């Protein structure tokens, strides 16, 4: 156990601090800020130089120091979107040389915005059952079908999309991963308003959308394996304990400032006890995060410890928002543009949006299957026999 970073890393931390102090006034100009961060290796740090990255050796401690310093200085990190977090690693691992050269650098620079076309109305947890068809026609695939939960689709230039190219093969083997422009004729985007009142997602409809066959990643029928290679990048981002840590600080401040009948919320022993229960959980998850970080740096497999982060982290964030709402009492239900609103209604928004995160990115129930099967070695649920797959109700 050694919680000090040591001189080499402390020197690096100082470099980061100096950079932030010198350049922080440029942070509001998004694309310019991104290019500056890339030039200094604070964004796209480990992406090879030939594809526009900084080309540094992966060093998880340096990445953490960058994140810590940007967070504590309250300056924005580099652009984080699905193109950078999911498509770029996928292309690096499985793309052709031409695809890498064409897409990675403009994506990193924020010049191309991507959306992800995975889920469908009939294919959520059972993603591999997806039905959007891509039929070969000359040099193209012709795509018909529908995607859902497509965040940023209305602003996206491009989509990376799972489609069924081999309908006769078993479900996992008939999927391909295509990349194409959102301006292609036949694509319609409809905003999907969620319970928060905002259109945080979209539905995307494909009608005879023609995509050149060369815009496939890793070949026909390989889409499921490509998608799994990237889903691990997504799950790693959900349930971040540092987010819970900053939320906890906000709640402590709120409970010290807000009063009911002249009594501070933190002086109410019931709310305070809930705060302390959650504080212990936040610390546990933060230390758990340090443990996983150490395991990654040492290239050790932390086993079940890694599998629980999404489940526990998202639930913890949700419970923190719930406490803030409860402590605020009637004030806690104000929303929209209401008088007496606190913090732009953010606690209610978070409480609802977190529920979306508990469901999305692999539902809590799917997470529990993963934990019990991969972490505890428990057997899979037996598959229903084919003729039982669609159980019919008997007539009374």
């Amino acid at each position, binding site marked *: *156990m050694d919680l000090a970073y040591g001189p080499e890393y402390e020197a690096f931390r100082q470099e980061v601090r100096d950079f932030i102090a010198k350049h922080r006034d440029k942070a509001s100009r998004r694309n310019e800020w991104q290019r500056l961060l890339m030039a200094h290796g604070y964004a796209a740090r480990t992406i090879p130089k030939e594809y526009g990255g900084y080309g540094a050796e992966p060093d998880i401690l340096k990445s953490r120091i960058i994140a810590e310093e940007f967070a504590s200085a309250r300056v924005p990190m580099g652009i984080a979107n699905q193109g950078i977090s999911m498509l770029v690693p996928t292309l690096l691992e499985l793309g052709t040389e031409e695809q890498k050269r064409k897409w990675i650098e403009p994506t990193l620079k924020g010049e191309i915005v991507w959306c992800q076309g995975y889920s469908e109305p009939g294919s959520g947890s059972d993603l591999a059952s997806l039905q959007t068809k891509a039929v070969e026609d000359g040099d193209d695939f012709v795509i018909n079908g529908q995607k859902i939960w497509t965040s940023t689709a209305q602003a996206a230039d491009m989509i990376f999309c799972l489609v069924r190219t081999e309908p006769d093969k078993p479900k996992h083997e008939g999927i391909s991963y295509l990349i194409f422009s959102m301006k292609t004729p036949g694509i319609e985007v409809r905003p999907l308003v969620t319970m928060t009142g905002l259109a945080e997602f979209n539905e995307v409809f494909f009608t005879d959308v023609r995509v050149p066959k060369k815009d496939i990643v890793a070949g026909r029928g390989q889409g499921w394996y490509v998608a799994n290679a990237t889903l691990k990048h997504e799950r790693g981002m959900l349930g971040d304990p540092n987010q819970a840590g900053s939320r906890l600080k906000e709640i402590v401040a709120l409970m010290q400032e807000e009063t009911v009948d002249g009594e501070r919320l933190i002086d109410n022993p019931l709310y305070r006890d809930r705060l302390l229960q959650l504080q212990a959980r936040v610390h546990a998850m933060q230390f758990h995060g340090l443990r996983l970080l150490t395991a990654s740096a040492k290239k050790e497999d932390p086993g079940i410890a890694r599998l629980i982060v999404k489940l526990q982290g998202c639930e913890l964030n949700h419970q923190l928002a719930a406490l803030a709402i409860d402590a605020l009492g009637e004030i806690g239900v104000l929303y929209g543009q209401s008088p007496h609103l606190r913090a732009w209604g953010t606690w209610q928004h978070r409480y609802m949006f977190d529920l979306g995160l508990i469901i999305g990115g692999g539902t809590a129930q799917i997470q529990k299957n993963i934990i019990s099967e991969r972490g505890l*070695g428990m057997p*899979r649920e037996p598959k229903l026999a084919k003729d039982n797959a669609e159980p019919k109700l008997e007539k009374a």
Partner: protein
Amino acid sequence: MEFGLSEDQRLMQDSVDRTLEKVSSLERVRKSAAAHEAYAADIRAALVDLGVPGIVVPEDEGGMGLKLLDAALIAEALGRHVAPVPFIGTAVMAPLALMGAGSPAQQRAFLPKLAGGEAVAGIAISERGAGAREGAGVTASNGKLNGKALFVLDFGGADVFVVGDRTGGLHLVWGDAAGLKKTQLTTIDLTRSIGELDFHNVEAEPLVSGDAQATTRRMLDAGRVMLAADTLGAGWRMIEKAVDYAKERKQFGRVIGSFQAVKHMCAEMAAELEPGRSLVWYAAHAFDEIPAESSLMAAHAKAHLSEVGRFVARTATEVHGGMGFTDLLGLHYWFKRIGLNRQLLGSPERVRHDAAVLQGWAAD
């Protein structure tokens, strides 16, 4: 930056674990519980051979001179094997009392004996950690103690007791001192001995060479981390037992572990308990290396593992169905171990109140 155990720590924990696997079997634990033994002498002897009682005692005094994190790894192993032996009092809190407030002569007289397993020390500071019940409290005047102390740790077979008085002073009392009445308290958990001491003008030797108040705080913090670590070990053993049972037990023509209702119970237990490991490690590390956070993190570890421990204990029992409820499987030894840990040295609510006070969020 390295948040984890060293190779030495892993080896040490592994060797304690393997020894307990052999000597602290369920059959042995049952025998000890049925006989209401003060402690299982053979298991204790095996641990003495490994140097366990001297884990935090300085090497000069015959101990291993290790840190609280090392002691926590042992506590985890003891909880895992529901080992019916004294540890938290005699091997952790008593040495801390002597090192913090004892004179060099007192240290020399007791530490080597404790470290070598020749003596057992009980700890009577429950009133400081959990509050006074039944009118308990000890007063000291003219070298004599009067009053009573409840929930004394490592009670059975103790040769000497470290006793906290009402004003925060600490005293050593011989187990056979005149005027000392010892009464065993029977708890749900028959793997550890808990008792009551009644003092009628009992001769005592004060520990006055250091700050007794601060030392009591340190003992309490360390004790809380040990109880949390014990629950971590006992809880994980219960999860493993539940998973093993669910993989074997068949109903409706399938092993019950293939039903999601059962799998999800197991996943929830693991997901709840595992981050507690990092909290216990951090609290133990902070005890020695980050003094400003030591008491707060000990309180958080104690309260959190108590809550999660209760959830694991009842859920793992449920996974075993009716068999979990019987004496046949002996699962209840772990259930009760976790139950006792929860209440000792402060229930979760009380410990969280301490955590609030430590952060200036509540008055003492």
